[in-house]
């Protein structure tokens, strides 16, 4: 029995009986595949045929549409008038006797081309993976460097913030003391009720109140930065995930402004074994994505709850949703629908890796026009003691 790979498969147009018989005789042993027109012939060539045998100059002309990557094409009876229509890559034969040798050559060429295409696809795939891993590495390095920087800044800010916090408190206390002093009988009424004095005290009071708010805000941000960039944790240790969520919310506050309402449905959560800084990065990614998904006003709902030995964190947005054709790919490295400079296509891929390092999983449900919900499931305690780092 002959090797099936060795059998030539010839697409023959036109598909009338006379033509088919003519080719069958000229190429004994070949498999003859009739094709009604050029488009059908091309489809067959793409699939499994080795060469097209077109009979007659009129047919050859219609095959011009086959494109630049010239298929092995043999034109029988090309005729003198057909020369301009048939490109260099085509072979025009005038006699059936020449066909077999040309067919062998055409088949070899075709197979080599097909093999090359496979090799190229494979090397493109490997290259894509390499680029993605490299980008992920760069991203991780960047996060680590950023983390160190942020931790340093947060640390350096302690002293000045401590001083300012204390001072604005002292200011309020001094003001109260001043008020007591001037309200005593020893203070002349003309001074006590002087409009300028009343005004100045009012201003200082108001300023102090705002200073207090401002320093409280700064302290909150620094605390969040510190939690976010906590570099001193080499080991996964039990942590309150809600703390991580709150810190992250503080940091993405400016992205949401008054546009987005955050609804917290925090259920009772036990402390979860984790690298809180890494999980905070995941939360950050989810929240920023949710923010980008919402045009105009909207809501982000964060739910936390326990389910058996796991905890679940759900981040749901009322945004535009993800079309089904993209849903399967969103965790793939390099997949993004955002314009250049907005998304790297790495956020969700890295998020998934972090969650998997925590022996958890991340799932997505989405409906176009209604919104998207990400659900993160994490074990309270890792079954395996091994650390992902």
């Amino acid at each position: 029995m002959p090797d099936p790979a060795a059998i030539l498969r010839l697409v023959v147009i036109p598909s009338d009986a006379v033509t088919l018989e003519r080719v069958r005789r000229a190429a004994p042993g070949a498999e003859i595949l009739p094709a009604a027109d050029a488009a059908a012939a091309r489809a067959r060539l793409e699939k499994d045929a080795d060469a097209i045998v077109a009979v007659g100059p009129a047919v050859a002309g219609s095959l011009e549409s086959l494109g630049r990557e010239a298929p092995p094409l043999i034109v029988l009876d090309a005729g003198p008038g057909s020369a301009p229509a048939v490109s260099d890559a085509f072979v025009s034969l005038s006699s059936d006797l020449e066909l077999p040798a040309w067919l062998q050559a055409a088949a070899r060429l075709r197979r080599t081309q097909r093999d090359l295409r496979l090799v190229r696809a494979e090397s493109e795939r490997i290259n894509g993976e390499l680029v993605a891993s490299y980008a992920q590495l760069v991203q991780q390095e960047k996060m680590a460097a950023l983390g160190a920087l942020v931790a340093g800044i947060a640390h350096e800010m302690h002293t000045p913030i401590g001083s300012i916090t204390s001072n604005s408190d002292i200011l309020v206390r001094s003001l109260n003391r001043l008020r007591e002093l001037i309200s005593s009988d020893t203070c002349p009424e003309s001074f006590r009720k002087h409009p300028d004095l009343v005004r100045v005290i009012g201003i200082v009071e108001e300023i102090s109140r705002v200073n207090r708010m401002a320093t409280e805000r700064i302290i909150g941000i620094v605390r969040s930065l510190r939690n976010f960039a906590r570099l001193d944790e080499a080991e996964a240790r039990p942590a309150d995930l809600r703390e991580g969520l709150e810190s992250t919310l503080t940091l993405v506050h400016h992205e949401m402004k008054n546009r987005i309402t955050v609804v917290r449905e925090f259920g009772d959560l036990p402390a979860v074994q984790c690298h809180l800084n890494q999980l905070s990065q995941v939360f950050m990614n989810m929240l920023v994505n949710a923010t980008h998904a919402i045009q105009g006003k909207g809501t982000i709902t964060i739910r936390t709850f326990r389910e058996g030995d796991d905890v679940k964190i759900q981040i749901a947005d009322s945004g535009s949703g993800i079309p089904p054709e993209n849903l399967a790919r969103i965790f793939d490295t390099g997949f993004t629908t955002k314009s250049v400079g907005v998304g790297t296509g790495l956020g969700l891929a890295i998020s998934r890796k972090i969650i998997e390092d925590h022996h958890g999983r991340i799932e997505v449900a989405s409906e176009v026009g209604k919104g998207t919900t990400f659900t993160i499931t994490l074990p309270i305690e890792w079954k395996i003691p091994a650390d992902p780092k």
Partner: protein
Amino acid sequence: MNSPDRQPVILVVDDEEMVLVSIKSFLMLETEYEVLTANSPPEGVEIAKQRTIDLVISDYLMPEMDGITFLMQVKNLQPHTIRILLTGYADKENAIKAINDVGLYQYIEKPWQNADLAIVIRNGLEKRFLLERLAQKIREVKSAQENLQEIQDQIIKAFM
């Protein structure tokens, strides 16, 4: 609170002037303590050599000497001084270690709250003065006992 017989003396040591000014201003406004400040640990040690310090507050990270080493030196000079460390968040673990090494009374995290600081200082001073009184009482009891012993001896001699 047990009001002491004398004005409490507090020493604050930090290489940052802003911290010194903030703490000193607060204590001057809200308390009757005498507040001494030093811009560096050696300066603080000099003060501790000359004055009785009831309570010392030291920063942890300082150029010449860390706060724990400094507090250790104060401890050697004046063992009964109440020692408080002011630390940034990242130095917390060192501070906890120091609780045992230096016999730290308390550590306060930066940024601190004045109200917390006031309570820690007040409690620290209370401990200091209670211990001082206790020592005084013990001395009194001891001398009373000695007197008693002497009288007892005299009585015995008189009857012998």
